[in-house]
C-alpha cells in the first residue's frame, strides 16, 4: 500500500521560536549601570588596591546612589583628593583599607572631614 507523501511546504505561517528572542540584544550599559543618573566613570592612579583586582589605569564604575556599607569599595574625598579604598567598620570606628600590603589603613576621625563620594560597582580593564 502506498502512503501519499506531502511534497509542498507549509506557506509562511509557522512562527519560529527564535522570533521572540531576536529583539533581545545584550547591552553592556544596562547590565553594568542600573542607575545611569548617579553613575560616573573614574580613572585609577596608583597601586594600593591591586589585591581587589583594581590596577593603575583601570576604569571604575562608581554609583553615588548606593549605600557605602561595610566591606564595600568606595571612592572617598579625603585631604582634597578622591581616593579609592575598602570600607571597614570595626565596633565604633571607621577605617579605609587599602588592598595592598605596602599601604596602611586609615582610621577615620570627625576632624578629618571625610566624605564618601560613591560606591564602586565594577572595575574595567583590558587583558
Amino acid at each position, binding site marked *: 500500500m502506498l502512503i501519499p507523501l506531502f511534497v509542498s511546504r507549509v506557506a509562511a505561517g509557522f512562527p519560529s521560536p527564535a522570533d521572540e528572542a531576536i529583539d533581545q540584544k545584550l547591552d553592556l550599559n544596562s547590565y553594568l549601570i542600573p542607575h545611569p*543618573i548617579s553613575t560616573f566613570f573614574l580613572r585609577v592612579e596608583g597601586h594600593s588596591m591591586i589585591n581587589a583586582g583594581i590596577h593603575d589605569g583601570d576604569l571604575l564604575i562608581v554609583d*553615588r546612589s548606593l549605600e557605602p556599607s561595610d566591606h564595600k569599595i568606595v571612592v572617598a*574625598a579625603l585631604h582634597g*583628593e*578622591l581616593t579609592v579604598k575598602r570600607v571597614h567598620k570595626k565596633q565604633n570606628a571607621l577605617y579605609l583599607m587599602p588592598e595592598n600590603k605596602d*599601604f596602611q589603613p586609615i582610621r577615620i576621625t570627625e576632624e578629618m572631614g571625610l566624605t564618601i563620594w560613591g560606591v564602586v560597582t565594577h572595575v574595567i580593564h583590558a587583558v
Partner: protein
Amino acid sequence: MYFLIDCNNFFVSCERVFNPKLWNQPVVVLSSNDGCIVARSAEVKELGVPMGAPFFEWRTLLQKHNTHVFSSNFRLYGDISHRFIQTLRQFSPEVEVYSIDEAFLLLRDDFISTHNRTWQDLGEEIRQTVWRWLGIPVSVGIAPTKTLAKVAVELVKKNKSSTGVGVLIEPTEINRALGHLPVAAIWGVGWRYSKMLLANGVMTALDFKNQSPDWIRKKMTVFGSRTQTELCGVSCLDLQDVEPPRKSIVCSQSFGRVVTHKQDLQEALANHVAKACAKMRARDLLTRYISVFAYAGSHQFGGESLASVVSLSVPLDFTPEITRLAWACLDKFFKQGLRYKKIGVMLGDLVPLQNAQYDLFETEFPNPKKSELMRLLDQVNQKWGDKGLQYAAQGFKKPWQAKTKTRSPEYTTSWAELPKVKAR
C-alpha cells in the same frame, strides 16, 4: 503645588563635584572668551564681586584671595544639568526645564494626603537626593503658584540659616515674605517696570500685590495682571512641558583677539553657520532669513555694530549654500581697517520641513543628494564632536577662536578626560 528647584551657583558647583580641592574655597567661572564672571562661589559673593563683572576688573582682588578661576566647561555643565532634570523626574512626570539650572515640578494637591508626608518633607527629600546623586546643592521653593515658588527660592537663598527648603502656602507667611521682597525681585517685573512702580510708591512685592488690579492692568498690561494674580495665590501660569517652536537660531562668539582680515571673519562666520545649521537640522527646520552681524571697535572708545540681512524665497538647510549667502552679507558691510571683536549669524523665519514650499524651478524638493550629505555630516559630527567633519571654509588653524585658558576636564563626556581617583 508648584516646586521650583534652583541649583546654587551651578557652574561653580559642577566644578566642585570632581575636585575636592575646591570645596569651601573661592571659585569663579568665566564666560566664553574668559571675559566676564558668570558664576561665583559663596566666598566670592562675600567679597562683593557682582554677577557678570568683567574679569580683568576683579582679577587682583580675586588673586589676593587665592580664587580658583575656570573657563566655562559647557559639556560638563550640560551633562550635569541633564542628570539634574532626570533626578527631578523621579518625583513627578510634570517637569518644566526653565533654564540650565532651574526647573519647576508640579505635584497634585492630594499628594501629601495620599503619601502621608508634608510638602516640607518632600522638598527636603528632593534636595537630599540631588545632593547625594550629583553632589549639587539646590534651593527648593514650594508654593501654589510659580511666581510664589520663585519668591520662596529668593528667600531661601537670602537667608543663611535656611534649611534650603522654603514653603509659602499660608497667607500670613506669604504676605510676610512679600513684605521683605523689593518689587524689582518679582519674577516678571523687569527694571523698566520697577522704576515706574517705585515712582508710584510701590516698593515691595506686598505693595504690588495690594495695588488695584485695574491700575496694574493699565500700567503693566495683562502680564502684570497675571503676576499679581499669581502673587495672590491663584495659578495662571501653567507648566510648559513642550519646548516652544524656535523662531530663530543664533550662533556668535567674541574673538580671542582683534580680527582685521576679511578671511578670518569669513572663517569664523563659516564655523558659526555650520553650528547653527546643525542645530537647525536637528529640529527639522529650514531658514528663510539670514542675518549676519558684527561688532567692531571698543566699548570705551566707541564701537560700531554692523549687520546685513538676506531674505530667501526658498527655505534652505544646506550648509554650503547658507555659508555663501552669509559671506555675501559680510561683503556688504565689511570695512577695511576696522578692528572686529565679534561676528555672528542668525537664521530666522524658521519653517518645519513638512511645511516647506517648493521653488518653481527646483525639480525635487528637498534635493535628496543635498539632504543625504547633510544627514551624514550631522551623524558623523554627533559622534565625533569637535573632531568631526568640517568644511574647508571653516579654516584649519582658527587663530580667531575664543580663549579658554583654564577649562577643567570634560569629566563626564570625554574618555580622555575622566576624573582621576588615587589608589595610593
